């Protein structure tokens, strides 16, 4: 686990088993060094918007990937996604839904809200590990992000 300001991956997961399995999988692929886990939707928003418990955080240090479960206490994953993607300060943060649900309506809703990827957790653990590995590699290594801070991006987007 890492400090909130050095987070590469924000893992939003309420279930301790899933949390452990996911962390295990990430760890196996050496992606778990800068992983920070929050346990419900509200906490996820506080983290991302630097409020409440995370008011000390800076917008300049956003995570490089958010792994978001859909079924969450307080605020569910879709609500979190909506807030993140609607706010210019956070909308460039890649959000990957990592869920048990393969429901079409969840998929459609997620994509409508601007999710970057949607991954169903396979029952088979080997498959799960492969999936986590692929997703982590893709977003953490292959994918290119702008060098500007999210604040700069937001400012540029506000100009005509």
């Amino acid at each position: 686990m890492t400090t909130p300001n050095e987070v590469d991956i924000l893992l939003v997961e309420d279930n301790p088993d899933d949390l452990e399995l996911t962390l295990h999988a990430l760890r196996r692929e050496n992606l778990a060094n800068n992983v920070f886990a929050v346990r419900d939707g509200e906490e996820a928003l506080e983290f991302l918007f630097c409020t409440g418990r995370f008011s000390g955080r800076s917008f300049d240090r956003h995570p490089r990937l958010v792994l978001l479960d859909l079924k969450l206490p307080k605020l569910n994953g879709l609500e979190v996604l909506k807030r993140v993607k609607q706010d210019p300060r956070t909308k460039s943060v890649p959000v990957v839904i990592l869920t048990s649900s393969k429901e079409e309506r969840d998929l459609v809703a997620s994509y409508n809200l601007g999710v970057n990827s949607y991954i169903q957790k396979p029952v088979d653990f080997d498959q799960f590990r492969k999936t986590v590995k692929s997703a982590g590699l893709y977003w953490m290594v292959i994918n290119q992000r702008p060098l500007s801070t999210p604040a700069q991006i937001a400012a540029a987007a506000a100009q005509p």
Partner: protein
Amino acid sequence: MEIFHKLFSSNFLPHGTCYLWDPHIVWLHVISDSVIAFSYYCIPLSLIYLVRKRRDIPFNWMFWMFGLFILGCGTTHLMEVWTVWHPTYLLSGIVKAMTAAVSIITAVALIPLLPRAIALPSPSQLKETNLQLQNQVETRMQREEELTRLSQELEQRVEERTAELASMNRSLQGEITLGIETQQALRASQARLSGVIDSAMDAIISVDQNQKILLFNAAAEKMFASNACDALGQSLDRFIPERYRSAHAQHVRRFGDTGVTARSMGSMGQLWALRGDGTEFPIEASISQTEAAGKKLFTVILRDVTERQRTEAALRESEERYRLLLDGVKDYAIYMLDPRGRVLSWNAGAERVKGYNSEEIIGQDFACFYTAQDRALGRPVQELQRAVQAGRFEEQGIRVRKDGTQFWAYKIITPMYDDAHALHGFSVVARDITERKQAEDEIRNLNQDLEQRVRERTQELEAANSELEAFTYSVSHDLRAPLRHIAGFSKMLAEECSGCLHPEGRRYLQRIQDGTNRMGMLIDDLLNLTRIGRHELTVKVSGLESLVNDVISDLRPDTEGREVEWKIGNLPFVEGDSALLKVVFQNLLSNALKYTRPRPKATIEVGTEEIAGEQVVYVRDNGVGFDMKYADKLFGVFQRLHRAEEFEGTGVGLATVQRIIQKHGGRIWAQAELDKGATFYLTLGSTKANEIDNEPILAKETV
């Protein structure tokens, strides 16, 4: 001048000298001659006066001659006086000569005049004539008066007569016209008459006083089956049955005595006639008599009424049957009304339905069958009027029985018309439908209940549906999660702690992992199945052949190390949801592959066949097949015909296939024999996407 002088000079001695101047003689001559001359001068004057006054005197020119001649004579006498003293004898001689000339002319002229002068009536004659004339004139005048009177009378009479004649003329004119018309009519009538006699439907036979046939028309020939030439001159008896002959003869005689021109026969009973072939037939007859040249002629007009009697009998029978029928009808009130709505007839059914017997009700106004309210609204009359307007009136309504109880009646009022199209009355057919009405009410209530229940059930189902959805969501998410955890942790256990496990423990761990994988597959298949149920079809035309080939290439990994022969026939283009159709063939073909696994060479065939005029697609394999007694379980969810050790599977595949085919409006069935392969047949209905919905079945049932 010399002649004049000679005239008035002379050397002669005056005439007095001859008288010797004897004064007596001289004066005698002188005075006499003077008087004569004077007289002679007076006469012409008188004559001239007369002639001028009496211009009508005949031969008046003779008076002028006389006047001239007498004037000459007077002048000669005057010359005698003159010559007594003056001896101008030449002058005197000339005067005498002129007088002589005039006198001779007058004398000559007088001669031819004499007879005419003699003919001139004398005054006495004239007077007499006058008198006569007078008389005649008077007589004439009297006559004239008489004539005038007569003439007036005559004129009067002439006028009267003229008027009379004019009117007679007019009537004559009319009579003449009438006469002409009558003649024409008579001629036409005669022509018609002979035509009528010849073409008459009725037999016309004329006989004389002795019953001898004088006229026998064509209809008679036909009716009696006898030729006219055979009948004429014969006795009428040959056409009368023997038992009636004498009576008939008497009858005709009596009729002859009555002097009545014509009358119908048979007042005493049915008349019978006899044909030439001896058969008898009923007739109707009338007889007439005429007298010509002192001989009586009887003419009989006959009609064969066999057919009519038969018809009448049939009609009577039919009416009787009809009456019996009407009386026999107990459930329907059938009655007739006159045009004003009074009851004319009443059947047993009417008595049963309405409670009145026919004696009570016939002649009564049918308004008594209505409720007081309907009567107040004038409905009985209105219904009759509407029946007349529309040709029929039909309704259900409350009616009243004799005992005052009310019942529901269904009735039809039909107007009836006579041959002249005048309203003759109404027929009414009514039925007590109280029971039916109650049944209907009951059905209506039941229907309402049912609808209510359907609504409730629908709500329940909708609730269940959304529960089910929540459930599948839950299965999809929540049930998979612990499964994943079991799988994950057991995997981690196997990897990281297998060293501390007994081999038996490791086997148990493997069984846990197999079980979780299987559970994962089951959940996925089940979710697929429910998803198909909720899936809306996207129908388009897709080629089955390329679809099947795609599926086969997807299945390639499963065929590794096996000999599989694919026989793909010409497959049609079909309308359907290609994604779902692909699921169908994925299932069917992977099943075929699975169940041919024991065969050294698998043969899998996909083709079409026509069954009962319908194009059917089939998938056939040479696999292990199945016993047809389990065919009904084939498509059930979680139903399997093989043990899991033999052939893996969740028992959801064929249920999914059936669900998809049914959603397309098609059918699927299988034909197999244990160990001899299986064939799956399927049809795709031509149903369009919008007809296949989640609700249509319910919608159709409520319509």
